[in-house]
């Protein structure tokens, strides 16, 4: 049993260092996995130290709770499909936030009447943010898992109602801070925060989920940090804040890559506001040219450099492995192949990289937008698979377009472009794509997986 608070503090310091190192190691895919193990070691030290604190009892409940949670965690983590990773992250975000809110509630119950000012402020913040994160994450999960419609759910006066609920929760929080020492007030705050969490994610569409998940990630970090103030634990303060910083940075990054402000994502109900503005494109008589797998195979065989531009359509068709086979086939013929990854390809930050890594695409072939864009003019064939808005040149050239200013992959600068797509239907932004009408572009219509399988056969035959 550890009774010396200095020893406890030092052991927690070890955990803090481990967590920081874990994040440091993530700066390169070479060391990243090692970093996760270092972080794991930090967590083991933190848990072991806490269990060894003087006076800890209720061992049966601690072990039982830990076991149940661990089993759920391991089974979930082991069985989840990589395409379902955003849901998984949302779920873990949610349970973390829920745990933080419950810890705050329990602390209030135990120490009520005996709490310093900053402690009650922290309890309020932890309960508020943790509950929003829990409920919001569950809705995000339900939407991504398609238990709920991925479409934005909107109704009149929505933002006003949301703000009213949040203000209600805030009022209860202020009452608690002002000295109202009643547990039902905190419970009421938690209930209102849960309602707010549900209502604020409902109107957000599936395409905006990368921003929401990052934001909820930050929220849970902040809730954990606030819990640290309640428990007087520097470990929780630092670890929670690291997550808060990470989530905030990713939220801003995602919003920027989608060319929208965070506020617009959260309160704009995408698609409701913008579809109307984009319909008017002048019909200049140009039409998209359809091509065949055989023609594309010939094109590819004569190329020196091919860049694959994967979008979420690729993952939906589960064609990652087929793309990798095609790429390997081309490389055997001495053709240089790279993958151009847009920051919002997929359903969460960096999702496409994980999906391709799962298909055994070596990571040194995956190029970020800034790295690959200067290479498009020297690219013979750009193979766009299930991507649309992120390759729309209107983002550079048409100030009237809703995506104007959004950073895109400069696919139109390649010598020739092959777009694999099911139909001419617009992407998430609901706008037409001039790329499809450019003279160097040909369209290979059909399911991405079928098209690529045909392409592989045709390349083999040529």
């Amino acid at each position, binding site marked *: 049993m550890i009774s010396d608070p200095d020893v406890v503090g030092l052991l927690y310091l070890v955990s803090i260092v481990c967590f920081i190192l874990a*994040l440091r190691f993530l700066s390169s895919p070479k060391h990243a996995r090692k970093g996760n193990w270092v972080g794991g070691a930090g967590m083991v030290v933190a848990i072991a130290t806490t269990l060894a604190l003087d006076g800890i009892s209720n061992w049966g409940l601690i072990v039982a*709770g830990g076991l149940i949670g661990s089993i759920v965690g391991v089974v979930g983590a082991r069985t989840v499909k990589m395409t379902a990773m955003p849901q998984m992250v949302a779920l873990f975000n949610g349970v973390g936030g829920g745990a933080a809110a419950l810890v705050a509630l329990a602390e209030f119950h135990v120490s009520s009447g005996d709490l310093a000012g900053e402690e009650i402020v922290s309890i309020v913040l932890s309960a508020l943010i943790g509950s929003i994160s829990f409920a919001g994450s569950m809705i995000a999960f339900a939407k991504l898992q398609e238990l709920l419609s991925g479409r934005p759910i909107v109704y009149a006066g929505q933002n006003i109602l949301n703000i009213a609920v949040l203000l209600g929760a805030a009022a209860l929080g202020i009452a608690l801070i002002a000295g109202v020492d009643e547990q039902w007030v905190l419970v009421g705050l938690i209930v209102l925060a849960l309602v707010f969490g549900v209502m604020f994610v409902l109107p957000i569409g599936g395409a905006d989920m990368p921003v929401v998940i990052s934001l909820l990630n930050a929220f849970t970090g902040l809730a954990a940090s606030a819990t640290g103030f309640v428990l007087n634990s520097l470990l*929780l303060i630092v670890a929670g804040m690291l997550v808060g910083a990470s989530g905030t940075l990713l939220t801003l990054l995602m919003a920027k890559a989608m060319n929208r402000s965070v506020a617009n994502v959260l309160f704009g109900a995408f698609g409701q506001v913008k579809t109307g503005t984009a319909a008017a494109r002048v019909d200049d008589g140009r039409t998209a040219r359809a091509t065949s797998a055989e023609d594309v195979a010939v094109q590819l065989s004569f190329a020196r450099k091919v860049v694959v531009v994967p979008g979420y359509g690729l993952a939906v068709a589960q064609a990652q492995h087929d793309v990798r086979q095609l790429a390997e086939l081309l490389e055997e013929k001495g053709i240089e192949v790279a993958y151009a990854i847009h920051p919002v390809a997929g359903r*969460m930050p960096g999702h496409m990289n994980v999906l391709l890594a799962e298909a055994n695409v070596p990571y040194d072939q995956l190029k970020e937008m800034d790295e690959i864009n200067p290479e498009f003019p020297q690219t013979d064939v750009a193979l766009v698979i299930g991507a649309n808005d992120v390759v729309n040149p209107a983002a550079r050239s048409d100030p009237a377009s809703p995506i104007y200013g959004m950073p895109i992959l400069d696919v139109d600068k390649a010598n020739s472009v092959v777009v694999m797509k099911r139909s001419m239907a617009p992407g998430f932004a609901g706008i037409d794509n001039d790329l499809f009408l450019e003279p160097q572009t040909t369209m290979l219509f059909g399911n991405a997986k079928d098209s690529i399988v045909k392409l592989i056969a045709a390349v083999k035959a040529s």
Partner: protein
Amino acid sequence: MTDIDLVVELTVLVLAIFLGFEVIAKVPTMLHTPLMSGTNFIHGIVIVGAITVLGFADDGFTRAIGFVAMVLASANVVGGWFVTDRMLEMFKRRPEERK
């Protein structure tokens, strides 16, 4: 746990924010999904709070709340770690060194 001065806590908090931004800015976009699940794992540190609450609980209400917090937090920790490890394992260079 010991009482720590609020100003000290706030100082540490602010330093952690700056440190967080510095470290996270160095993570390449390629690894942003593992970064999210990795930070997911790190906020599982709230398990320390759950253990403290449950371990020192001496009434039914606190035990019940603490138990649920314990289940949620340990799912967060264990699931977050395993899923991050699973993802990072997949990131590989090409087998033959071509560059």
